């Protein structure tokens, strides 16, 4: 098991290098060091000397990938790519282009992202399981048909619309929760409710539909029929056997996304003014802050890979027949 994890982790290294090279190339094409300098020096009275000295200060005056003028190892290390990208591997995110320490910001903002994403996931999964089980129980009846139609309808609504309508209704008309904002600690509760409710409602359609198929698949299996033939009531069959077995695909699906919760939701966070990593990323894209974007891409990839490994492990946990080699 441990050997497996180590091997997978090692396998991640070339992937992360690839990710790094790709983002580096893309963003450098978009945003040359001159652009960055100009962006950070402001609008009024920017001179070429100021741009040059800004670049020198931030190590952007070097060649991109290969420094032919340097000697020995410096040919590789005295370049923009090396100075700005490779440190990521030791999770040294460096500084944002405005001088802030990215690691400090990330570790601070992570919790705000989690405060939204985790309850949304948990509440969402709970509700989806409940509704899906109900529909599976009532399969074939008109309630099932209409339930599915409603699910498809809910899926067909853009998340943006849920957010706009939710803010309008709950905050503006009903005065129930603050429109936007955030406070750390327990005070976060009143800010978190609305995004969580909206996120959950937005996910019900797709989630319920998916989970219903899991349940139906299990219910078609022989052991369920046997249990039923033994005279167990439908509800007991459902809770005893079907739910237990259907939890396997549900849980493995959930495990993959858990690491990504840290990154947060871009749209939710910027609509609700939540200082999480999602809004951090959007800001960085809009301000073209290369350092932050690079760090977030890297973090995202790492978490994704962690998610994959976790999924594999969770398979072995729920189903002991599977062995990792």
């Amino acid at each position, binding site marked *: 098991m441990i050997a497996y994890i180590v091997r997978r982790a090692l396998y991640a290294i070339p992937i992360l290098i690839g990710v790094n090279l790709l983002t580096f190339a893309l963003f450098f094409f978009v*945003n040359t060091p001159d*652009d960055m300098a*100009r*962006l950070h*020096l*402001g*609008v*009024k*009275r*920017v*001179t*070429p*000397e*100021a741009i040059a*000295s*800004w670049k020198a*200060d931030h190590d952007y005056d070097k060649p991109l990938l290969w420094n032919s003028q340097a000697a020995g190892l410096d040919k590789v290390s005295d370049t923009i790519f090396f100075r700005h990208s490779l440190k990521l591997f030791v999770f040294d995110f460096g500084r944002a282009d*405005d*001088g802030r*320490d990215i690691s*400090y*910001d990330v570790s*601070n*903002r992570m919790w705000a992202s989690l405060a939204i994403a985790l309850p949304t996931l948990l509440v969402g999964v709970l509700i989806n399981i409940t509704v899906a089980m*109900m529909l599976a*129980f*009532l399969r074939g*009846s008109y*309630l099932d048909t209409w339930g599915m139609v409603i699910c498809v309808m809910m899926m067909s609504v853009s998340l943006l619309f849920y957010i706009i309508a939710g*803010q309008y*209704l709950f*905050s*503006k*008309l*009903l*005065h*129930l*929760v*603050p*429109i*936007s*904002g*955030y*406070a750390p600690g327990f*005070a976060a*509760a*009143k*800010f978190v*409710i609305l995004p969580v*409710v909206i996120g959950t409602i937005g996910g019900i359609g797709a989630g319920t539909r998916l989970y219903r198929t899991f349940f139906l698949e299990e219910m078609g299996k022989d052991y369920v029929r046997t249990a039923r033939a033994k005279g167990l*009531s*439908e*509800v007991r069959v459902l809770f005893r056997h079907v739910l237990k077995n259907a939890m396997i695909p549900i849980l493995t699906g959930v495990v993959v996304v858990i690491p990504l919760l840290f990154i947060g939701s871009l749209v939710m966070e*910027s*609509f609700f*003014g939540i*200082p999480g990593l999602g*809004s*951090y990323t959007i800001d960085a894209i809009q301000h*073209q802050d290369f350092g932050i974007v690079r760090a977030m891409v890297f973090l995202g990839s790492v978490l994704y890979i962690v998610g994959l490994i976790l999924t594999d492990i969770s398979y072995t946990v729920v189903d002991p027949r599977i062995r990792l080699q």
Partner: protein
Amino acid sequence: MFFLLASSAASASWNDPYPSSDRGKNILYASFRERPKHFDPARAYSFNEYNIIAQIYEPPFQYHYLKRPYSLVPLTATQVPQPHYYDGNGRQLPANAPTADVAYSVYEIHIRPGIKYQPHPCFARDQDGHYLYQDLNREQLRDRHTIADFPHTGTRELVAADYVYQIKRLAHPKLHSPILSLMSDYIVGLRDYAQVLRDALGKGGNEHGDYLDLTRYPLAGVEEVDRYTYRIKIRGKYPQFRFWMAMTFFAPLPPEADRFFSQPGMAEKNLTLQWYPIGTGPYMLTVNNPNLRMVLERNPNFHDERYPRGGEPSDEVAALLRDAGARLPFIDRVIYSLEKENIPRWNKFLQGYYDKSDPSDILAESFDQAIQLTSGGDTELTDSMRARGIRLLTSVGTATYYTGFNMLDPVVGGYSEKKRKLRQAISIAVDEEERISIFLNGRGIPAQGPIPPGIFGYEGGCAGRNPYVYDCIDGKVKRKPIEEARRLLAQAGYPDGRDPKTGSPLLLYFDSPQAGPEAKAVLDWTIKQYKKLNIQLVPRVTDYNRFQEKMHKGNAQIYRWGWGADYPDPENFLFLLYGPNKKVGAEGENASNYESSGFDQLFERMKNMDDTPERLVLIQRMLEIARADAPWVWGLHPKEFTIEHGWLHNNKPHNMTHNTVKYLRLDTELRARKRQQWNPPLLWPLGVTFALLAVGAVPAVVTYVRRERQVRR
């Protein structure tokens, strides 16, 4: 969910975004849209930065809060000094000496004794008088992440040397002060000083990073005369320099602070002057979390400053003089919350959770709700707003937004009569009045030239109109009819928008950095304007970077840009058309690359004059030249509207200064009452929803029961 709701609703308003412990306190609530980048006074140069640091840093002068036109009054200085003039041989000249004779001007500034800095760890000393936090190593810094993690603080008296120190910092090569190159032209020795510092710093820096003890390097043009007096020597005559000295670039900075923040390990934790300002002003920044909020706390060491006694006649009516002579500031704390989206900001204002809107906050979308035009064409608040006790304050901003032609462009540029007529024709066709009414809801006035109202040289009415675009009919300024534009276009060689030789339509390009939902509407509208002349306009939309690059290379054709005043002087607007200030080649701010020898000569004469009738004549002649050449479609000057709640007092819009928080006063009791009254939680819709869900579950239960029965059978 009910449980959570109930727990957060222990007190009155459920949607109150602030902690209940702050309720009823003397706190001003404001917002910021983007995290400010620089709080270092040598760097800060934009409104959102000034909004904060102007409350903290105190330059020697400030603008009078109430008087208009804008006039300077002393802040930490004892008076606003008149410069002494000297010729090349160092002989003093009389005050009315001709500009050409003046080689140097010297400003001698006395500051008031007894002014103290805010409490700050950089001043903290132990019993023996040694600094507590000036010799820290990385280990000692390990658990300190913000300035609040240093428990001990101290203070010190403000001295003239601090002002000198800050002027030296403008030349620091690592600070990239935006005004360094401008000031190097004026302050004697500043350019050489920058070189000296660059050499001293060496290429790789020294053991203290970028820290240089500037007190050891003298600057020729700036000297400390005595403990409370310093002197600045300026090349030639530059009356506008006094305005610069009212900006935070010239605020005092204690060398201890610079040293404190330069200790190794500080910068890595964002412990820098960029992040933690230190000043003598009425407030100090205690919380700086740009992801969430910034908090200004009253400075306990603030010197004795009084609310101004005199003002404009209208101030009496507006109840702006009730606190005359009272000690400033009135408010204990200011909380700026991050609010990126317009709609939440506006709604929170309406719910009473922000005390006033910033001028930029009243966006067109919420405008109809708040403001209406009266039958006389004036603006006033709607009845629903007035019923809430909300007030409206208006002022014309000292800014101009214009559509520029790149004068280097072969199609729209050039100075021949034909090209001039082409530009004039377009100037008539682009209906700025309509732009103001559609996109600004009337919050602007069409520009007749570069100079906005409130600045010397601006003239209203028929006399001040641009005769190439506007007619004077019955004493009213009216845009010329579109037929006139068509006629001009025909004379320019494009009858009906076509090149008569080839028959091909005139194709122009519009360079715009605009993005976002508004952009499409504005672009569509712009295309429509040129369509009136049958000109085909192709917008080239890029991001702001690319736009700037295009401007620098002179590749743009028609573009839209703006300028906000640094100081209330016409020079600050007319220099946007001054030839040697071109963007291409000279890296100046003349984005149209306009160059007219007549204009330039007049500019050089005008720029150093006082506001005399002779100066006005020169300005009028310059405007005439520029209007005929039409390098810009003179766009509009924005009107700035602020709306505030009835519980906020003493607010008067001021376009030149930002240190106005100290004048404001709050009626917290009224605020608490209104907030409660405006935000009653409505629960019945939730109840109805749950009831509906419960009803919806009935058929499910029925089906369930029926099935169970079937199974049993």
